[in-house]
Every structure is written in C-alpha cells, then in structure tokens.
C-alpha cells in the first residue's frame, strides 16, 4: 500500500490511465467526423460543437440532476449544429470548410455566452466503473477507474465498422461520399444522406464534449477544450477513414498525451516540451510511414472537397 513504492511502473500505468481518461472525447469526435466525411463532406466545426456539447451537457446535468440526460442533450445540441452545417452546405456553391470554421466560432461563442452562469455551480458528474477493485495499489485503482462512455466509444467504433461495411444504409452513405453521380444514378437522396451524416457526426461530437465537462477533467470552464475537436478531425485522416483505426488513433493519442506529465512524475525532469509534443510527433511519424506515393488518397471518400 506504500504509495511511493511503484517507481517507474508509474509510467506504463500513467500511459494506460491517460489512454483511458484522455482518449474518450477523441474517440467520439473522430468517429462522428468519420461518418460525416464518409458522406463526402468535411465538418471542421466540431471544435465548436464539442464546446457547445460540453456546456449543454453540464447545464442539463446541473438542472436535472441526471448526468446521462446531460449527455443526451449534449448530443442533441451537437445534432442541431450538425443540421445547421448540413443545411447550409446543401446550398449551391457554399464551401463546407468555410462553414465549418464559422461554426467553430459560433459554437464556442454560444457556449461561452450561455455557459456564463455555469462556471461556479457543480453539476453531478458521470459515474465511473471501478475496474481496479481487484488491486490494493491505489495507483492501479485510480488508473482503472473507467468512465462508461469509454466503453460506449469502443462499442461505437465496431458498430460503425459494421454499419459502413455490412449494411445497406452504410453502402448508401459510402456511395454518396464516393461518387455523387453514381449515387444519383442509383436514386439515392444525396442531400438527405449528407445532412443526416453531418447530424450524426454532430451528435457524437456533442457527446464527446459532454465527457469533458461531466467526467474528465470534469467541470465547465471556458478554457476546457485545448483543440481536441480540431485534433479529432485530423485523427480521421490519420486513421485513413476507418473506424477501428480511429479508435486506435484516439487511444494512442490519449496515451502519448499522458507521457509528458508522467515522465516528469517519475523524475525524468528535462525535455518536457519535447515529451509534451509526443502525440504530435508520433502522429507525424506514423503518417509519414504510412503514406503511399502511388495512391495518396486511396482511402479518402471521393467526394471530399479536401482532395479536389
């Protein structure tokens, strides 16, 4: 039970704990964005959706006393934002990237404005599952104190995989995203599919935001997001538009993010700026390693304007 006796073992433990604690918002936002991008649109506004979700989740949890109701309303708020994005982008000659950026500003601004009275009150947080019950080491217990949303996120990654690859609706979504002409020829409602995909993406991003305010770090403040929403969009490209990869990338990113503080914790005190950059360096390295000269956009949905 001596708390100081775990020594360097604290490092893998911190990385594991960090992967579990930090990655959940990345999982939700990146899988949400993945669904949107599979329909052929990019929604950069998820950073704003994340903040709006964080605020809405905290507000409803505080007012109703039920954190799960908070999560649901965060999702609905995100969905409304996704609807806005989907609708605006359906107008001819409207650029989805520009709309996304304006939604970042609108979402954060709206969240700050409506969230002003929420900074001081304490909302009931999401409960976590104590998976470390078998251990008598407090550090292990703390690392394995896992939020239920984390498991929902993992299940979601697999569910989205099945949806995209094994269902008719998934095929329709992919067709719309890969070739608008082909989708029209088949009689698919292109705009409707895209709007619904963007709404689904917004819903998940909102839930990702509610994790920030209701679980970890667990309160509403204006500095809550340090770019998680933007980073999650980048993770989708990193994951080559595959949901299982997106899950892996989020976990990797979360774990690597814990490296900086953890190394200083075990006494490796120098180079912390470098270690703090670990997630980004790792991302860069893997992206360089996994590029293909022959077919650089092989996995990208054909209709993504990013690649035109």
């Amino acid at each position: 039970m001596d708390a100081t006796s775990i020594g360097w073992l604290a490092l893998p433990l911190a990385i594991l704990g960090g992967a579990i604690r930090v990655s959940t918002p990345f999982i939700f936002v990146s899988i949400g964005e993945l669904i949107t991008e599979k329909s052929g649109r990019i929604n950069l506004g998820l950073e704003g959706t994340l903040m709006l979700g964080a605020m809405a989740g905290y507000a409803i949890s505080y007012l109703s006393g039920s954190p799960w109701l908070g999560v649901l309303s965060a999702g609905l708020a995100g969905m409304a934002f996704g609807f806005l994005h989907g609708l605006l982008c359906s107008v001819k000659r409207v650029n989805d990237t520009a709309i996304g950026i304006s939604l970042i500003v609108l979402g954060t601004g709206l969240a700050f404005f409506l969230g002003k009275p929420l900074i001081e009150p304490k909302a009931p947080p999401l409960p976590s599952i104590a998976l470390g019950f078998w251990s008598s080491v407090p550090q292990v217990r703390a690392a394995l104190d896992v939020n239920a949303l984390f498991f929902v996120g993992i299940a979601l990654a697999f569910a989205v995989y099945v949806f995209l690859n094994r269902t008719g609706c998934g095929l329709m979504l992919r067709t719309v995203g890969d070739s608008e002409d082909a989708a029209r020829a088949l009689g698919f409602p292109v705009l409707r599919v895209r709007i619904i995909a963007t709404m689904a993406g917004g819903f998940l991003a909102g839930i990702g935001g509610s994790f920030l305010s209701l679980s970890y770090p667990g309160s509403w403040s204006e500095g809550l997001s340090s770019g998680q929403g933007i980073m999650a969009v980048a993770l989708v490209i990193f994951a080559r538009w595959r949901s299982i990869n997106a899950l892996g990338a989020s976990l990797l990113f979360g774990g690597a993010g814990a490296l900086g503080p953890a190394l200083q914790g075990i006494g490796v005190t120098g180079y912390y700026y470098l270690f703090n950059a670990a997630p980004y360096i790792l991302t860069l390295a893997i992206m360089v390693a996994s590029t293909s000269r022959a077919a650089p956009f092989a996995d990208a949905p054909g209709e993504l304007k990013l690649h035109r």
Partner: protein
Amino acid sequence: MTLKPVDRRSVLQMLAAAGSAPFVLKSTVALAETPLTVGVLYSGSKQDYGFNQSHAQAAAALKKQTGIKVVEEERVPETIAAQRSMEGMIRQDGAQLILATSFGYFKPHVLEMAAKYPDVTFAHTGGVWTAGMPENIGTFYAYIFEAQYISGIVAGHMTKSKKLGLVAAKPTPNLLRSINAFALGARSVDPTIQVQVIFTGDWVLPVREAEATNTLVDQGADVIAAQVDSPKVVIETAEKRGVMSCGYHSSQADVAPNGYLTGAEWNWITPYLVYAGSARGGKKPEHYLRAGLGDHFVKNSPFGKLVTPEARAAAETARADLIGGTRVIYSGPLKDNKGNVVIPAGVMQSSSDRALDGINYLIEGIIGQV
C-alpha cells in the same frame, strides 16, 4: 522622478488601511464630485477561478466605491484589439484610468495608447516602466511568492507523506520565485520534505493539468499546489483523488470543500485604489509599484477545515515575521537542486531585491528542472 521609499510606503499603508476599511475611503472619495471612470481589460474570462478572476474581484470592489464607475471587457487578445478596446473605453465611456491586467498588453499597446492620450492614466500589471516611457503609465505587481511561502508552511505541516506536488505552467522567473518560496516554506517545517514540480508547458491546458495532478498523486504527493492560470481543474482533481490542495491567484476553496488548505491570492484592490487616487488627483501615477503581504497586495485564502491549530499558528507567526522583516524568504546559504550555491551564506535577498527578477533555478528539495 520616483518618490522616496519612505513616502511611498506611507502612502501605500494609508491606502491599504483604507482598502481594508472601505468606509474610510468612501468618505474621502465622495469629496470629489465627478465620477471617475475606470476601464479594465482582461485577457481571459473573468470567471476563470484564477488570475483574471482575481482582477475581476478587485474591479468589483472598486465598483462599490462611491464616485467610481467601472467598465470592463474580458477576453481581449494581446493584439491590436487591446488598443481598440482601450481607445473605446477612453472615447466612448470617458475612462480616465485604464487598468490593463495582462502582461502582453504593455508593449506596444499600452505604450502607444498612453502616448496618444496623455491625460489618461494607464496602469499595467507586470510591466516595468523605464525612463523615456510616457509619464502617464504606472506598472504594478505584487510579491505573491510571500503568500505562497505561507501556503508552503501550511502544506509542510499537513503532509504525512513528506512529498508535495506542484503543477506549474512554464518556468518563468515569476513562477519559479513562487515555486521556490513554496518549497522553502514547506522545508522550513521539515527539511526532509520534497516538492515535485510538473510543468505543463502552457498557461491553460485543463486535460494535461488533470493528468499532471493524477501523476503527482500516484507518486505519493498528498498536498497538491497549482501555479497555472486557472487552478480549478488541478484543485478539483486533487479533491477527487482525496488529497489536500493549495490554491493560487484567487480562492478555489469552493471546488474543494474537504481538502483545500489555503492559497496564495492577489489583492489587486490595493494598487487599484492607489491609481484611482492619482488619476482623480491629476497626479502622475507611481511608475513602478511593487509590494507584498505587509502592504496588502497579496493575501492567503482563509484556512480550510483540515488545517491544524499548529499549522495555523506557524503560518501566522511566519506572516508576522515576514511583515516585520525579521524573516527573509530568500536568505543564504541556499543551494539549487543541482548542488550549486545560488545565495551564499550571510546574503539576504529581500522581496524587493531586483536580483530575484531573473531567477532561473529551483532550490534544493525540489524535483524538477527549469
């Protein structure tokens, strides 16, 4: 140009006394007929449980004074937007005193605005006025490390594991001064105490601050102190992990009702009143204004319920010694954590000693690296 130290001190003390008993000042201010409009700029949210909130609290106290009107703008970036904001306050609201509370406002924004509006008084937090700069600029700061030293004493009394954790933003001289003071306070109680520092690398990074706190608790620290812009997340995480905590900037006591011990807080109302006085009187502002516990520029949060009577008594004694000058925080012999002597035996660097401005070491007993 500068006033004699004796004069300055007496003026400060008078105003500080007025600050602690506002009705005294109210009667003097009420003598002036036209209300003084004061414009306050914040770089972040007024409710950040941190640095900006400490200013916002002082602005709220200023607003209560009769004859003073306060206009505020938060989240003003340290760009040309700061100049627009100041200009707007001066021209539209008629502000005669501008309080620019973020470091980055100074160069060039405050300097340019002060040259453009010589009749308006500008007071800036943290800047250093040098000869040749506009005469209507005052710069003020406070020796918060004195309050952090008191927090260190309380933490040193309360720790059982003899290990304290500290989450800090960046190794800047001001932060290092406070980190060292915290460690010196704790180690004055028990020289075996160690302070472990984790630098997050930026001013506001909630997720990494929470991670750093968790890591420190995992390493056995049972008191966590925070020196980031908004210590709320650190204090909250410490509370969730069931350890004690010490705050910074403003009080975070309400987010950690069990474990909050005390905290080092700014008490900006004192310098605000100094500048309100000079702006109203049409006098030149104090160009370089710095003070600590004795002049009520900083204070400690009220002790939390866990703090033992011995710890309270030791903190009060140390406070009295610091104010009376019988105790100097940075006194030799002092070694850094690499074994070099940084202050030789017999040398004392008092709070106002400019030698401390460029501090770049962590003292013996701190695990961490600049």
